[in-house]
């Protein structure tokens, strides 16, 4: 699950998926092959549909995702 204050954004040209923590100002751009994000029009925020295990553990350790 995405931590509070983290922006998740998938660039329009599929050049990457941005995770930006607005509390710590740390950010990471993940390859689209490792993380798929969908944008449901009913919500302002995108949903993470899938993420590879290796990237998931990086995102958790860097404080972008919670471990559940």
């Amino acid at each position, binding site marked *: 699950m995405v931590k509070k204050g983290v*922006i998740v*954004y998938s660039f329009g040209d599929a050049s990457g998926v941005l995770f930006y923590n607005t509390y710590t100002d740390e950010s990471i751009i993940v390859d689209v092959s490792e993380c798929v994000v969908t944008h449901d029009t009913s919500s302002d925020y995108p949903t993470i549909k899938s993420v590879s295990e290796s990237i998931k553990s990086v995102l958790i350790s860097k404080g972008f995702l919670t471990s559940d």
Partner: protein
Amino acid sequence: MTSSFVLDCAPFAFNVETSFSYVRDVAKCIYGNRFVESTEFEGYVDYNVSVLNTTGLRRMFKPQARFLSEGQEPFKPLDKSQGYALLEWGLNWVVATHEFSYVIVHSAVLAKGDKAVILPAPSGSGKSTLTAYLSHHGWRLLSDEMALISPATCRVTPFVRPVCLKNNAIELVKAWFPDVYLSPVAPKTHKGDIVHMQPSVYSVSASQEPAEVVGVVFPKYDPSCFLDIYQLDKAACFKGLTHNAFNHNLMGEVGVRTMLDIVEKSACFEIHYNDMNEVSAFLDEVVRGKVDV
């Protein structure tokens, strides 16, 4: 003995107090009718700054210039001959550290009409020489140092101030534009020899007209390259832009989303160049939306 004047430099007005008559004289030449005596200024003053002589006996045998703003002194004193440069750097500091009504990117901004290109670049990339040239060849200068972007928009507000030129660029610009006012050289600053070049009349006359960002172009002077153009993907452009951003972190989510919006809506390139006319032609295509992507 100090004197005071106001630099009415939209979108801000700075009241400047100085002990150095030469700082006042240079400011008057650079800012023209935007230089107003404090006693005659009737508008709202946003910030008070001072460039003063250092304290104590030192002022007599080795005078130095200090920059102060409302009780804060962000820089070490410099030699008196660098006093004007200190004022201009000080004004940059005041805006960068106090202004959060704009997302601020360290970059030049040039426009044709109401279409602007942001040129983020670190010191030493040749950005200011390029800006100086283009601002006298059909482009209006919105800023040499900082893009003031209104949050949640792609709109950039002009902040027209002198172009800061270093070392070899000084002689180049003197040769290109012998009639344009340059400040006296500030020798041996941490950036080398420095002058400040008066912005073009056209840029100043349009200084209250914002523009929409349609391009983000990272320039790099390379004597071996006529003009090499590299299209950037959005992720790379975002990285480069945030690397040059001052304050988006303090603005939280809206700061980041503003940068994302700019990147998505703009043509994004990196250019290596040695020919300024070629750069001008390329940027012209960018603002007209005619670049083949």
